[in-house]
Each structure stands twice: as C-alpha cells, then as structure tokens.
C-alpha cells in the first residue's frame, strides 16, 4: 500500500500561528470508590504467560500467501432495486421498493412542512410538534416519529404479513386521530423539559453559527413554549397528504401497497401547502470562533465547520469524497494524524450534513486538556493539506470505494433504503437521484476534490465551535481566528462577564 499523501504533508502545513500557551496539566482520572468488597490481591483471573512457548514445527509464518495480501476486487455498486412511484387519490406521494429476501416491511412517511417552520430558529417548535403528536398512541413496536426544521418523519416496520398494521400505525399518528387532550398536554410539558437536552451544545452551536441564531428576518426565537392549541393549529396546517411522501420498502408489492392505502389513508385529507423554495441563506455575520461554556464535560469538543453545497449541486460528489479523505473512516487523514500519530483524540472524524438548501462540512474531535491545542490545530492542518495537495490516486480510489461501500451498505436493509429515500424526498429529490449517485462519485477526479476543498474550505469561510470549560479560551485564542465569543448551549452569545453556572450544590 502506498503512503497516504496528505498525511505525509500534515506535519509540514499549518495555518495557525505558533503561540506558546500555559495550558493547565491534564486532570487525573477521577476518584471512583475502589474500596468495595473486592480485595485487589485476590487471584481473580488466571495468571498471564510471560514465558515464550516452544516454536511450532512445520509452520511457516512467512508463507507467500501471508506475506502479500490477496488481490483486491473491483468496487461493487449498490444493487438497483425496482422502484415504483405514484400519487394516491388524496395527493399522498408513494414510493415502493420491492425487496423479497426477508419477510419484513419498513415504512416511512415524511412530511415537508414547507415554510411553516422556516422561522423556527433552534427547531424548538418542530421538536415539540413531533414529541406531542407523533409519539405512538399506545405501545407500538418500532414506531417512532419526530419533527425538525427539515420536516417530520414517522417510521414503522413489521413482518410483511402485518403490513396493513404497519401502515395503520402511521396513518393513526398523522391523520388527526386524537387522544385525550390531557395526554397531549402531558407530552408537551415533558417535551418542553427535554428540549434543552435533546441535542448536544456542539450541534446547536454549529447550526447557530452556520444559519444564525435568529430567523431570516433577524427575529430571535420566542422565549415561551407554544400552547397546545397553537401546536394543534400547526399540525392541522402541516400534516396534510399533499405535503407527504410515503416510502415502503421490503417484502411487498406495489399493488399490495395501493390496496392498503385504500384502507388506511383514504380518509386523510387537507389543504395543499406550498413547498419551501430552496434558497441558500447567506452565511451569518457572526463570530468566526465560539466557545460554548460547559462545565460538565472534561474534554474540549471541537468542530471546524464550513458551509457546503446542497445535495442538488454538481460538485456534491466531490465534497463527499473530500470528507471521506479527510476523516471518513479509520484510513482517513484525521484518524491517522490526529488520533494515531499525535494520540490527541479517541473520537475524531469528518462528516457532511445536508439541509434543505445547503450542507455543513464538519471536522470534529474530542480532546483532553493537554491535547486540545495540538488536536484543534491538527484539524486545521488537515483542511489546509486538502486545499494544497491533490489526493493521490490510491487515496482517491480508496475514498471512492469507501463512499460507494457506505451507499451499498445503506441500501442493504429495508430501513436503510427507506431512510435514504425519505431524507431525499424532504430535499425534493426523486429516487433516481440516489440510484445515480454512486456513478457520479466514481467519476470524480482528484482535481475536482481539491477544487471542492479550495471552494468550500476557504480559511475565511471556516468557523470553529468549541464546547468546554472557560479555561479552554486559551486554546481558542491560539487558533488565530480572533477572540472567541462565549455562547450558551444554544449558540446565543453570553455577556462577557456573564454569571457562571449555578455554583452551589443544591442538595448536599
């Protein structure tokens, strides 16, 4: 195997000034009670064999087949399952993928909430909408529902002979069947309490930095929890068949789906709502680096983020490969440089998340105190290397194989196929788009990957989100992106001398 090109360069490239900082020493491992009933010198386990055993006879550890690895095969494309697509009488769009190997069916209904949640900064109303109305009405196995600013998703699955029941579970949740109002009140109250912890501060700060902490008119989110009646009004306006796509994957047929739709969804109706028009919002004029104060974690969570293209863009396959080369798998630049060479982080990697009209490319690591500066710089260095040095043929081939393998893997289960088609339906993409994607990935050149890096990972476009204790401000300052703005877990700026979190232990 050839050496990984960008990896070699990583040690030579830096976009951050070298600043000596006084970082406190790493905290010792915490004190956990060890004085329990187990005596440490009790012979709990067999002793290890420290002595070398006798050599094996008639065995060659260097046989030819051991010295050189087996030949590699061509990368395999995902299987092309037959896809049926039609519109039901009430306007519900249906996609059916027939797979007959395993006697299960996965169903997923996605609702494009259009512009109804476009002003839902932070996604709280969406979260409450899903948690209140898409929670299964009774204990229903493998049925889940949730909403985000992208839209709502309800999933169910079961044995193929239970297909009617699988669809009925979904229909029951979205078609306005009510339970006692007190149940919805209870769910809303509980969901309002859970919202704070529903996403990590890293995710919320990234979204705030990439899309703003106010809506597109500059308005901050309303502070009060919406009432149940306001949420019911939102549900009635958005849970309508013309805005929904039902995906059914598994051991069934198109005609069976049509028959069950007649039984389960025929009574569902509602007005047509306009689809949101994808328009890429401008990058907010926020800070380039934030430190979200969080005293509860010992590590520094660090993400270098940048806005990427939408899934509709021509260069999105190149961004997929760029992300893979940077930090997609165990063979990536970040894994080898930041984790294995520097030993700076156990968790490190890169990913791209797609939203309706843009994507976010993120390189992320969790660093111990004494590795935080090295690790954060390692992330920046990896980006710089990707911009400056074209990936080697071997790196690119491996990345292509890996990206296509992930697509193949995602297409290996009913649930995986339904999830992909559902996510893409919310983005306005047709099933053919994902079927064509592996070929588009395989056609990307190293120059196109580098061009994507130069376009989307421009130093001026990069933003840094740190989550950790205030003392990590020194690390933030060392990255050369200016003084960090302190934020709360939602990405809202804190006053410069804001009060620390409650310091008095309330119970002891």
């Amino acid at each position, binding site marked *: 195997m050839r050496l990984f090109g960008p990896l070699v360069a990583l040690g030579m490239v830096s976009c951050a000034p070298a600043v000596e900082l006084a970082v406190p020493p790493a905290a010792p491992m915490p004190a*956990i009670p060890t004085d329990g009933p187990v005596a440490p010198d009790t012979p709990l386990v067999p002793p290890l064999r420290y002595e070398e055993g006798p050599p094996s006879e008639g*065995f060659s550890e260097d046989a030819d087949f051991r010295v050189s690895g087996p030949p590699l095969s061509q990368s395999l494309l995902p299987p092309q399952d037959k896809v049926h697509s039609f519109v039901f009488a009430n306007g519900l769009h249906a996609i059916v993928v027939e797979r007959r190997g395993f006697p299960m069916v996965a169903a997923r209904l996605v609702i494009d909430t259009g512009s109804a949640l476009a002003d839902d900064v932070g996604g709280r109303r969406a979260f409450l909408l899903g948690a209140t109305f898409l929670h299964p009405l009774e204990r229903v196995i493998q049925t889940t529902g949730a909403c985000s600013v992208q839209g709502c998703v309800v999933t169910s699955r079961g044995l193929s002979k239970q297909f009617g029941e699988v669809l009925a579970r979904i229909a029951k949740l979205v078609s306005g069947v009510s339970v006692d109002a007190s149940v919805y009140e209870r769910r809303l109250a509980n969901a309002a309490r859970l919202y704070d912890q529903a996403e990590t501060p890293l995710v919320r700060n990234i979204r705030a930095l990439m899309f703003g902490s106010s809506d597109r008119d500059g308005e901050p989110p309303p502070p009060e929890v919406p009432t149940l009646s306001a949420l019911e009004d939102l549900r009635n306006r958005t849970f309508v068949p013309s805005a929904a796509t039902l995906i059914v994957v598994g051991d069934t047929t198109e005609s069976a789906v049509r028959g069950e739709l007649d039984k389960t969804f025929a009574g569902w109706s509602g007005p047509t709502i306009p689809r949101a028009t994808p328009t890429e919002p401008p990058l907010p004029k926020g800070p380039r680096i934030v430190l979200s104060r969080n005293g509860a974690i010992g590590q520094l969570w660090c993400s270098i983020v940048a806005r990427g293209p939408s899934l509709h863009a021509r260069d999105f396959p190149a961004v997929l490969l760029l992300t893979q080369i940077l930090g997609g798998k165990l*063979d990536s630049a970040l894994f080898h440089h930041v984790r294995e060479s520097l030993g700076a982080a156990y968790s490190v990697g890169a990913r791209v998340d797609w939203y309706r009209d843009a994507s976010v490319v993120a390189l992320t690591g969790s660093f111990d105190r004494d590795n935080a500066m090295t690790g954060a710089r390692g992330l920046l260095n990896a980006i710089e290397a990707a911009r400056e040095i074209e990936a080697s043929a071997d790196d690119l081939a491996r990345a292509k194989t890996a990206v296509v393998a992930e697509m193949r893997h995602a297409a290996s289960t009913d649930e995986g196929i339904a999830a992909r088609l559902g996510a893409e339906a919310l983005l306005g993409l047709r099933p053919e788009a994902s079927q064509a994607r592996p070929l588009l990935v395989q056609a990307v050149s190293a120059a196109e990957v580098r061009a994507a890096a130069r376009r989307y990972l421009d130093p001026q476009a990069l933003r840094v989100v740190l989550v950790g204790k205030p003392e990590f401000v020194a690390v933030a300052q060392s990255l050369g992106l200016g003084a960090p703005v302190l934020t709360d877990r939602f990405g809202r700026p804190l006053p410069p001398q804001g009060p620390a979190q409650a*310091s008095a232990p309330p119970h002891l």
Partner: protein
Amino acid sequence: MAMRVQPGCWRLVARAKGFAVFFAGVTLCGQALADGRISIPPVERYRLKNGLRVALAPDPSLDETSVTVHYDVGSADDPPGKEGLAHLVEHLMFDGSRHVGQGDYARWIARAGGVNVNGTTSLDGTNYVATVPATGLSVVFWLESDRMGFVADRLNPQIVQTEKGLIRDEMRDKILDRNLGIVGPAGWTQLFPQGHPYGRNQLYTGLADCTLDDVRAFLRTWYSPANAVVSVAGGFDVASVHALIERYFGDLPSVEPPRRPDLPSGSGVHDVRIDAGAGIPHDIVTFMWTAPAIGEPDDAALDLAAAILSDPEGRLQRDLVRTGLAVDVSARESSWRRLSVFWISAVLADGAASEDVVRAIDRAVGDMAVVVRQEEYERARDEWFDTLMLRLETPAYRAFRLAQPWPSESPWDLNKYDDFDPAELSGAVRSNLTPDNRVIVVVHHDNRYPGQGVVLHREARQR
C-alpha cells in the same frame, strides 16, 4: 453419514465427505418457527484442527457479508493491577501485525469495501467486526489471521503508550462526559460478590501500569485459535469460505487457554446507597441489582421485566414521568456469562426530591413482584421479537451473535420469550430484585465537580 435430530439442529456425527481434512465435526442448525413467522437458512459450525471454532450462516438473500472474530477474553480477565489490559490489546490489534504495516489494516479494509469496522471489549469477550462484499472476504481473513497469529511482531513501547492515552480519552468520551455513563462506576464496585472479576471498577485504573511485556503475555495467554471463534454471515459461497478459512487460519499455532478459577457466589451487597456529586444537568437515581447470568433461570424473564418497566406507557412512566418526578426513566438487564445486572435509572425533573423517586421506583418494583398482566407480557415479548427481526436483517448482527459463546437452544433464539406465564415474570422480580441485592446510586447535580466524573459523598448500608 449418521444423523440425529436436535431441537432445531441437524448434527452430522460423522465427518462430512470432502471436508474431512478441515473439520473435526460439523453441526448444521436450521431455524424455522412452528408458526411460520420467519425462516433463516441453516447455520454450520465446526472446529479446525488447531481448535478455532467456525460458524457460517450463509444467506443468499443478503447483499453483504459480515465477519466477527471473537476472543473469549474480556476486561474481567485483566490481571489485578492491570485493569484496562484487555481493552489496550483490542486497540493494539489495529496497529499492524507481522505482514500488515501500521495503518495498513484500515487501508486494506477500505479498499475491500469494508464498512462497520470495529473492535469492542466487554467484560466477557473481545470482538472484531467488519462487513464487506463477499469479494472482500479473503482480505478480511488475511488481516484477521495475521493479527491472530502475529500482532505482537509489530508492537513497540511507543505504540502502546499512544493507545493508552487514547483509551483514557475514550473513557472520558464514553463514560465521564456522559450523564448516565458515570452512574455505573459509582456503584459498580459495590455490586458484586467479593472476589468476583466483574467487581473491579471499569475505569481502567491499572492502565498506566500496563507494559509491552504485559501486552505480549496477554496475547500469548488468550489470543490463540483455540480461544477464538470466527463467524461469517451473509451472501457468500460456502465452499469458497471453507477453503479460505482453512488457508488463512488452519495452520496457525495454538495453545489452550487457561482455566478460569471458580467464582464466588451470592450477592456482594446488602442494600447499599451511594450519594455522589457530578457536574450533570439533572440529578440521576439508579437502582442496580445483580441477576442470574445469561441463559440461567430468570434471565429471560428479567429481560421481559425490564421491557415492561421501560414501556413508554407503562409503570415507571406512570409513576415517575406523568407525576412530574422525572423527565426520563428506563430499565434494562445487561446479561453476561457469569452474572447479570438489572438497572432502573431515572433522570429527575427540576425540583423533584430524590427520596420521592427512590420510593416511587421501590413501589413500582414491588407492584411488579405481585402481578404482571398478560397484555404487559405480550407487548414485551413482541418488542423483543421485533427488535430481533430488525437485527437479523443484517449479516453483522448474525455474525456477531454466532460468535458469542452464549448458551442458546437455537442459533437465533427466535422463541426465547414465547410461552411465558406472567406469573413467572413477577416471580423473577420477586426473587431477584430484592432490597438485599441492590445498590442505589443517587448522583446529584453538583457544579463543584465539572468534568470530573462522579465524586463520592457518602455511602450507607441501609440495613
């Protein structure tokens, strides 16, 4: 060829023609439920001459193929003072071997189209997993056999030092910086009988003292074909895989693993309560009980009991969440080969008193010890079956499951939770979830200890 029928299995007592060179014996285990819910092709199990156990689950309906290599050694086998050694060895298995350079393992797997590549260390065992197209199996077998036989050849003190640092990071990442993760270590050491290898804390306090010599000795002692299982599941050609496994693993030298000492029995605790503080957003109350090992009487019944208690519309939700005492509550049984642990955990609502939550959990468990309703059992049973179906759709779960030395009547245990009488469930709760068999951990929100895990405040034996 003589055959006799076992429950769900065809055992070929004589050697199969054509495979006699390879196999000491072959077992084919099919699974087709009486009610016809699902049928999965038979599983083949055999041993190589060096003792390596092989399990094959071919299924032409699956597009991918997964491999699990299981070593029958886990963190419970860490020598005293070397806690963390099994996990350290797992990390080092990815750092190259005699014929695979450092970093090349991942490159080979990537070029073979591998996904879900990972290693995991539990109390009982260590697993290495990968999923590839069938065309990539030879690469996986080559890599796995090279590290099974020769991983020690490429080790050095620097690599060991780096991986020790990464494991400390991993502990912070997965345990110390996670709300519920920190609860376990606080009560763990109190839970098991004296001398039980599960009873040491799981934060690897001996890691710093693990040396390269310890790593080599651990490999020599435990990482041998005779102490390993290779399982393959998915869409592959069986004859080709027979030949590949023989080629890559068949002549690896092997030594018998040592016998483990008998373990102390009984409970390690008598109603212990631990109060601790941590920089967490909400207080957490956790009950832990020791429970019968996997496959022992009451183990399956307690699985179902946990599912009933976790029901989103069930007892704990009714008594804790709906009453405003907690924002989240869950129950589960973690089953291991030598003992299990039953957990109930509640994340308290703002302003709720931990004493009220402790009483509510006590009451819910007490009620369940009296009666379990038929419909509660049926929902729990159906949930287990449905979850199993979700997993069995993937070759990764099939391979992983086949590699585990769990006692089971059939390869997939499709019927494991059928035909229970609800009274058996309440009986299992009554027998096992008793006050004299538990630890209660109350971790208070306490910002004096941000990011430092759990800090013990007081400990009391309640009787």
